[in-house]
């Protein structure tokens, strides 16, 4: 009975907190709302990364590639056709002459992210540890440069503007919930359990029939699809985007969120995304203008990232498994009585 309750808590904990943040967004002033929406989109991105990095234990610096692909695919395909002739002059005619609606653009982004991750994962998922980290970083670099230079598929180095801003409180909340539910279902599934086993000890997992390469590839693909989807949410939140916004800083920020929250649990991914993005928003405002917290102060440019990086390092030193200890949310009494 308590085992069933644990299952329920594992899903409902993250879901309820996301819904709360979504509800807060609707009560916030117009200038503050964007911080809540930002946090919810970050939940989707970090959960997408968690599906691969958290469950497999293989480090990837490349998941933001799939966010970038999703963001630009959804962005380019939703700029109204009339506006495209002005701002996306050199793209392929197919892209120039067609646009799709909001929901199709989210699905398209998810599909492209998944396909791209699968293709990249085929050779890469044979690697692990340091080699995997470096090779996935190479994927980020390649993706970034292709998106920045190839003006047949997008705006190149210029800003992609005029993207419909459809990610309001409802879409941000639902989007984060979709990511959470998919991640939950996956980690509870046979495949998710096998991948987690391989994370704990690859040799033991192989000795009981786990095909580690296959399981990692599937998770990488699912993670890529979720990341693409989250990228679409992101571009529909921002309304305009450059390739720099889905590159190194976002990679660092989202990995910091995952590490701070706790790499190995969905709960950790959600808590880390909400906590760190809240802090990030506060600091970036403090960089731009006066903030009143007991004293009135303004921060120097760059303080934000210095501070966030220091926090990530501190968490790694003091609490290596993150704020949640890398565990799923459990109700206290069920913990004491044990599962089952």
């Amino acid at each position, binding site marked *: 009975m308590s085992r069933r309750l644990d299952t329920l808590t594992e899903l409902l904990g993250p879901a309820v907190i996301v819904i709360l943040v979504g509800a807060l967004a609707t009560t916030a002033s117009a200038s503050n709302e964007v911080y809540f929406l930002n946090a919810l989109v970050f939940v989707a991105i970090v959960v997408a990364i968690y599906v691969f990095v958290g469950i497999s234990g293989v480090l990837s610096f490349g998941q933001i590639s799939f966010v970038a692909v999703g963001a630009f695919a959804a962005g380019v395909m939703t700029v109204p056709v009339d506006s495209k002739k002005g701002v996306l002059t050199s793209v392929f005619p197919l892209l120039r002459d067609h646009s799709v609606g909001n929901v199709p653009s989210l699905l398209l982004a998810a599909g492209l992210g998944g396909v791209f991750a699968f293709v990249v994962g085929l050779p890469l998922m044979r690697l692990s540890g340091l080699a995997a980290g470096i090779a996935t970083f190479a994927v980020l670099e390649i993706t970034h440069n292709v998106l920045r230079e190839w003006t047949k598929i997008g705006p190149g180095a210029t800003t992609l503007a005029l993207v419909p801003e459809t990610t309001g409180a409802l879409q941000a909340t639902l989007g984060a919930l979709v990511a959470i539910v998919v991640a939950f279902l996956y980690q509870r599934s046979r495949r998710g*359990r096998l991948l987690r*086993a391989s994370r704990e*000890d690859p*040799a*033991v*997992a192989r000795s009981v*029939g*786990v*095909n580690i390469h296959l399981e990692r590839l599937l998770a990488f693909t699912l993670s890529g699809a979720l990341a693409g989807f989250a990228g679409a949410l992101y571009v529909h939140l921002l309304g305009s985007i450059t390739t720099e916004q889905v590159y190194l800083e976002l990679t660092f920020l989202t990995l910091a969120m995952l590490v701070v929250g706790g790499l190995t649990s969905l709960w950790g991914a959600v808590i880390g995304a909400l906590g760190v993005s809240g802090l990030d928003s506060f600091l970036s405002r403090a960089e731009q203008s006066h903030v009143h917290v007991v004293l009135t102060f303004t921060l120097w440019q760059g303080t934000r990232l210095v501070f966030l990086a220091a926090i990530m390092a501190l968490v790694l030193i003091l609490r290596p498994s993150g704020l949640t200890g890398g565990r799923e949310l459990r109700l206290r009494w069920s913990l004491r009585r044990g599962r*089952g």
Partner: protein
Amino acid sequence: MGDPAPASGIEGRPEDILRASAVSRSFEGVQALQDVTLELHSREVVGLVGPNGAGKSTLVNVLTGFDLPTSGTVELRGREITGWSAHRRARSGLTRTFQHSRSLRALSVRENVEVAALGVGVGAREARRRAQELLGRLGLTELADVRAGSLAQGDERRLGVARALVTEPAFVLMDEPAAGLPEAEVPEFAEVVRSVRDDHRAGVLLIDHNMALVMGVCDRIHVLDQGRTLAAGTPEEIRGDLNVAAAYLGETAVATDA
């Protein structure tokens, strides 16, 4: 005694045999295994003994797909499986346990066993049923919800056996399962090994330095020294073999604290 002896008293149908034929493995010029031939039948326990560095673990790795032989072949139930991956062998009924305590440490004892069943393709419900039953049989029911990483040595070894058995293997290769086990728990573990043979009808290849355990539970014993087969036979035959005494029994004094 120099040649590997045939199986004692057990008629081998090919579907009941795991066989390494003339297997060699060298690592950068060092010959870890040289021309070793070994047969393991269902429902027997074969001891694999020899001093450290004799090639015992290498042989287990080659048999289970964690390493590939430089030459020679491995056959499982009449099919050649020399190049098969470890996970494919596990799904075909050949699994192993590991030297030292190795578990899926952050997972519960129950999940360790259930996930092993899932690994070989068993459905979730059936995996749960099998795990429940095996945990009971191995005396781990009380510990089902404990993290595997916090188990005591003896419990951890039995968990390793449970994880192997839940896959319903035809052959289980155990790499030093009793190492580090308190002496008082060895007889109990010997019972577990016998039960794998008698109740689960699996063939067991048992590497261990504990001669009391090996002599007590094994139907046959295969002695390796410097990568070669030094002797093979029943425990009585091996006990009387002078070569073995020289190569191995001198080692046991060293091995007891290993």
